[in-house]
């Protein structure tokens, strides 16, 4: 079942006289329960794509439907409403409020939707257990490690069981051990809870945890790789190869 459908999306920056086209008529479909990675050279528009898909930024043209809702035509208030009930976010940095404890940070999305306190408590215990951050729940962000921070923000993205989770380079600041820990948790959650995940990454290892990798170039989809039944290792090699080709092309540019 399709959960997200983007058709012919364009995104321009600048004004009439000095226009920069970042996305040029890109089409993208994501199914429910998929774990998709987006890769591409720096400046190719990955973050831009993620932002427009997640309603944080507006497209210049085109349509984006999430669970059948056309989000490009929504007003600011509706969008906020939509984000709080349907979307979850994990970002590389600046993702936790440093004046709130881990628990308070994680519970934030539930207070937006005014979930009863008891249910909230239950959900928190569950997700914190899964991500292994129950012990640090009363600490402040500057008292925990980078990996724990990242897991906290993952927990926050998961707690209200959104239809889609968007992650922009969630492993960028982590060492390879913490990174693969987090990615393991993500794919576990993806399998166990059937959560849809869209992740931007530079790291082929991170990308190899997903079911599908989309490569962006020149504002359009360059190619896609499906994991299918391959092992993670072979999928990883495929990704490396494609990235090499993409990178070479990029340098000529």
């Amino acid at each position, binding site marked *: 079942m399709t959960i997200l459908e983007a058709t012919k999306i364009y995104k321009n920056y600048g004004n009439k006289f000095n226009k920069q086209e970042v996305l040029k008529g890109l089409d993208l479909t994501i199914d429910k329960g998929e774990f998709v990675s987006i890769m591409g050279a720096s400046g190719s528009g990955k973050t831009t794509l993620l932002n427009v898909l997640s309603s944080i930024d507006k497209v210049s043209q085109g349509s984006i439907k999430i669970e059948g809702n056309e989000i490009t035509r929504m007003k*600011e208030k509706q969008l906020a409403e939509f984000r709080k009930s349907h979307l979850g976010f994990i970002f590389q940095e600046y993702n936790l409020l440093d004046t709130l404890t881990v628990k308070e940070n994680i519970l934030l999305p539930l207070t937006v939707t005014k979930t009863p306190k008891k249910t909230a408590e239950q959900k928190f215990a569950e997700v914190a257990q899964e991500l292994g951050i129950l012990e640090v729940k009363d600490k402040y962000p500057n008292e925990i490690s980078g990996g724990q921070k990242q897991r906290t923000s993952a927990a926050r993205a998961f707690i209200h069981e959104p239809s889609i989770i968007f992650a922009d380079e969630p492993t960028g600041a982590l060492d390879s051990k913490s990174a693969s820990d987090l990615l393991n948790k993500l794919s576990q959650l993806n399998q166990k809870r059937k959560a849809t995940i869209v992740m931007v990454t530079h790291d082929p290892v991170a990308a190899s945890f997903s079911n599908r990798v989309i490569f962006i170039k020149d504002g359009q989809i360059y190619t896609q790789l499906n994991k299918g039944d391959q092992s993670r290792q072979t999928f990883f090699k495929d990704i490396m190869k494609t990235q090499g080709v993409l990178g070479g092309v990029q340098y000529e540019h």
Partner: protein
Amino acid sequence: MSIKHLIFQNLKKNIKNYYLYVFALIFSVSLYFAFVTLQYDPAMNEVEGSVKGAAAIKSASILLVAIVSIFLLYANTIFIKRRSKEIGLFQLIGMTKNRIFRILTIENFMLYFGSLLIGILLGFSVSKLIIMILFKVMQINAIAELHFSTEALAQTLIVFAVIYLLIMFMNYLFIKRQSILALFRIVSSTETRVKKLSIWEIVIGAVGIIMILSGYYISSKLFGGDFTTINELFLAMIFILGSVILGTYLFYKGSISFIFNIIRKKKDGYLTIKEVLSLSSIMFRMKSNALLLTIITTVSALAIGLLSLSYISYYSIEKTAEHTVAGDFSFTNVNDGEKFEKSLAANNISFHERKIRVIQADANLKNILDTNLEELNFDPKKMKLPVISDQAVDTIDVAPGQAVFTDYNNALQKFMSFKASGQFDLIGKSKTIQLTYLGLRNDSVLSLDFTAGGLPVVIVNQTDFERLQKDINPAIQNKSTLFIGIDVKNEDQLEKANQVFNEFKFNGDSARSRLEISNGMKQIMGLTMFIVGFLGLTFLVTSGCILYFKQMGESEEEKPNYSILRKLGFTRSDLLKGISRKQLFSFGIPLVIGLAHSYFAVKSGWFFFGTELWTPMIIVMILYAALYSVFGILSVLYYKKVIRDAL
């Protein structure tokens, strides 16, 4: 990019950011210039006569400069810290420190002297208005005529140029001392390290609240008779001051986090957006600003207290004059009285005359005095009091053997209060008359000449009065035993009667005019109120600006938080509601504490200043709070912009 271009770019950006700084600068310059113009204006000394108007204004302008320079220097440290990143960047691209300093100096120069110029122009144009306000509160009927004073101009320029040099010197030191790395780090190092509340802080928090409350408690007892010697009183005052100020500091340091933490614990992690933005942020911020907030609170309390007291005095002038002079005019010399009455009649001013015989008698008040003040100059067993017959006062009747007191000074009442009733003695030359005291009245029957500056007047029945008159003690009688009170029947003629009175040039000890006295007090109190008022206003504006600048910094620091929250699906209005609440606390807490401090300060000693506490104090407090809130509202508007740009 040339230096010139850079400077202009920065200037453009800064003016938008620091419009409030420019405003405060213009405000203080124009006020200072107006004050100095007044000081050099010949009208000042001519009009007031005995009051040294120019000298008072001069000391006020010195205080003004003190407030303003502290403000400007402090504001500058905030700004330069905020721009440290930019300065580091300049250094990184290879500019020398001297060059950066030059850029900063030129940039500041334009901003500063631009405001200075506008301030002077504005100051000159409002100085007429200001002197009119002064004349109005002093009730002087004079036309304000002002000339542009070159002395005032020169003095203003010099004073503010010196402050500018100081600012530049500070910037110079700042730039000299910083390395590139340190410059990049500065913003994060001043940020609060968010940590868990320790036991120590809980103790601090509790101690802070206890100290403030005990200070308040002692202040309410200050003049209640618990402190019986001057030394004890003095110690008590020192204790109140110390414990309240220190308590305030500890309150900001610990109590706020302590209280907010309790609230937060109750929520068990489940915070609403309002709580996220207000509670959790303020908890950590107040702590790091504790010293600044303590200073602002204390000085606000001082300003509100002084304003209240001077307004209380001003407000009570009529009442005080009434107790000083019973009637529109009063005489103790029969000749003077007759001369004046004749003259009034000649001027067709109809009047009403009261003549009251006044006997001085020693009274033994031991049984009805409700005080234990040791260091009093009076012996409660032998206190000289004026005695009159109840026939002299229309509104009061007492039976033989009974007595009421009246005309008792407000402040003295606090030191020596009487019991509700009881027995006391009037001691004549040979005999003693025992009387029953029935209570205190508030009628004004005699002028100050008879009451030794505020002691009560004893009103007895005519028979008792006659008994006392026969047994009079000549050693303690006043020179005159006759009080002549003259009331002008038609209010409109009072002014004219007063002119007649002034023409005579009577001896001030035996002839008094109430109007003359209240006018004199109005001049002194008016001038005081004027000066305290403008100084208070300056302090209010500068401290409001400082809090606003602090909020500007906080909003920039918290901007990433707003963008996270908006991504999570909170709308702009959700955030703004939370921010409004945060600002309610950020500005409201110092204000409320300042108001509470000044309330207890005023409450403990207001009776020395006047007869009416509530109306003048509440008016002052409401005005102060309203003006102060403007800065809170401005800061919310600033946050609104930051939130809008956060996504």
